[in-house]
């Protein structure tokens, strides 16, 4: 059933209903070999539900998903044998030693005895745990645990990997090392799907898919999204007093959104050039001292918030 040219992950009009509630509303997507795709979206948007369907853990209500060449509704077992899954809080057993965890997962994934030794040393190497096989997993620092968990999830060399908030709370250096590993695997042809809240993490993905209320609202490379998906321009406003300025700006007609950021305000306007002088005047007239107003590049978070706000508004309208 496998066609080497077909994308490893295909979803067509995927739907999941829980009673009256539509959790996933006709999602269409494809992930290519060696691609790292990130799923972003608020809690309850349908990310986890979508991933679970793709993993063969949840039966779709309608639509179709083909993962690793198998239909998730008809042959979920086969799908599960060909994918790797790493969850947020690392499903490692804290009271087992490192090597015991590896062997446990190896047996779960039916890693054949002939290649077991080789895979074991591969995981130990990748996680930097050579010489630490007998350490109790619970005593490992989180960065190492995370890499070990990743290793255990790919012992059977799956061609598709699902990661669920894999680096939350982990220190930045370990996170960067982790993502190096992911990119290396991707370079070898593994397709990686990630769900995350972390905007930092989203930057590591080749492509992002923004899910809101069960539907895909935006899709593209991080930089691309930052450039075109933002409905409007982002301005940095440094002024005093901040509280008054915020109130004023929120009442100004052209201002789409205004939020405090430390010692300054981030303001979304339709057009930067037109807005800058207008805002300066509006604020100074009310007694606000303005030190700086300049356009800044939106972060992924700004994009995210702007898109979901737009969706929310559209929904209410």
């Amino acid at each position, binding site marked *: 059933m496998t066609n080497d040219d077909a994308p490893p992950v295909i979803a067509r009009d995927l739907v999941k209903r829980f009673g009256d509630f539509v959790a996933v509303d006709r999602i269409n997507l494809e992930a290519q070999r060696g691609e*790292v795709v*990130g799923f972003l*979206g*608020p*809690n*309850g*948007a349908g990310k986890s539900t979508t991933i679970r369907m793709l993993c063969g853990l949840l039966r779709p209500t309608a639509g179709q998903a083909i993962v690793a060449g198998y239909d998730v509704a008809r042959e979920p077992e086969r799908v599960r044998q060909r994918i790797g899954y790493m969850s947020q809080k690392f499903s490692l057993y804290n009271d087992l030693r490192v090597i015991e965890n590896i062997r446990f997962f190896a047996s779960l994934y039916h890693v054949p005895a002939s290649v077991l030794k080789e895979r074991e040393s591969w995981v130990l190497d990748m996680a930097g745990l050579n010489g630490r096989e007998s350490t109790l997993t619970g*005593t490992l*620092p*989180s*960065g*190492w645990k995370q890499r070990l968990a990743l290793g255990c999830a790919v012992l059977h060399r799956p061609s598709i990997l699902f990661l669920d*908030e894999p680096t*939350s*709370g*982990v*220190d*930045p*250096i*370990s996170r*960067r090392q982790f*993502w*190096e590993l992911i*990119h290396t695997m991707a*370079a070898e042809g593994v397709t990686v799907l990630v769900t995350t*809240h*972390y*905007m*930092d993490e*989203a*930057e*590591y*993905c*080749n*492509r*992002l898919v923004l899910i809101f209320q069960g539907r895909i609202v935006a899709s593209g*490379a*991080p*930089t*691309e999204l930052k450039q075109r998906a933002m409905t409007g321009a982002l301005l940095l406003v440094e002024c005093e007093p*901040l*509280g008054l300025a*915020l109130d004023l700006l929120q009442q100004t007609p052209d201002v789409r959104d205004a*939020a*405090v*950021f*430390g*010692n300054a305000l981030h303001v979304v306007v339709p057009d930067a050039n037109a807005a800058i002088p207008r805002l300066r005047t509006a604020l100074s007239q009310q007694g606000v001292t303005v030190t700086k107003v300049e356009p*800044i*590049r939106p*972060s992924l*978070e700004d994009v*995210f*918030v702007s898109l*979901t*706000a737009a969706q929310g508004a559209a929904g209410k309208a």
Partner: protein
Amino acid sequence: MPAAIATSDLTKRFPGVLAVDRLRIEVHPGEIFGLVGPDGAGKTTTVRMLAGVLTPDSGSAMVSGFDIVRDPESAKAHISYMPQRFGLYEDLTVEENIRFYADVFGVPRADREQRSRQLLDAAGMDQFTTRLAGKLSGGMKQKLGLVCALIHRPRVILLDEPTNGVDPVSRRDFWRILYSLLDEGIAILMSTAYLDEAERCHRVALLHQGRILFCETPAKLKTHLKGAVLSVVAPYPRRVRAALDGVEGMLNALLVGDGVHLVVDDAARRIPELRAKLQEAGLSFDRLVEVAPTIEDLFVAATSGTDGKST
């Protein structure tokens, strides 16, 4: 004005681990102070000690004018603590939860009703007063936790990773509520592993293995980074990175989803050099510009400098 929170050599040890190592910080009224660092840096331990629920091994801390180590109970009436697993009673409604905490802190009824209305309004939760707390979404639970923490007009608010796992939209609502409190002269200390949240604080302490690396305003923090950060957006990031490997002036190269982030010693000088190098290698790229450094860049530079490869 005296500091709302002041610690001196605050230390806490657990078996095999020095969790907090002679911490010294000060937080002033009307300020949001961020305690930033990854898991295991000592954030939760510090916040717990300041809340008076964990006894330090040595050192002292004054919170809201009281010695939290010697006389924690007096301080607790003026402090608000929101732990990571905040204390919502899932089988009580929103209203009942608020009432419980209000009564525990002795808030008179009229006060409670007015303030509760005000806070719930700000949180966008005024429609949900009779809903069971257990049935709220993650973001709303967080906001309710905050409302319960604020109902008694504390002078100091201690938040331990309050936005953990919460989506960005709810996070913004959360921050909006926090900022609105500053006008009342409240001091807020919050811990977070989200480095980008540090940007929203007035001052930030970067914690690493129980010690403070830096303690400054976010703007000043970034000046600590030696060099500049460049962003290269290209269709084949790995090849770009390989091509620029070993180039003079390059301090670090990080693969991201659609390109490479480079740390160089001098942006103005290196940008044209790098462009030339890439063209020479025949690699296409969409952009090569200087970008603002993030706190993460600083953190990585600082921690890899101090002890080479991190945990």
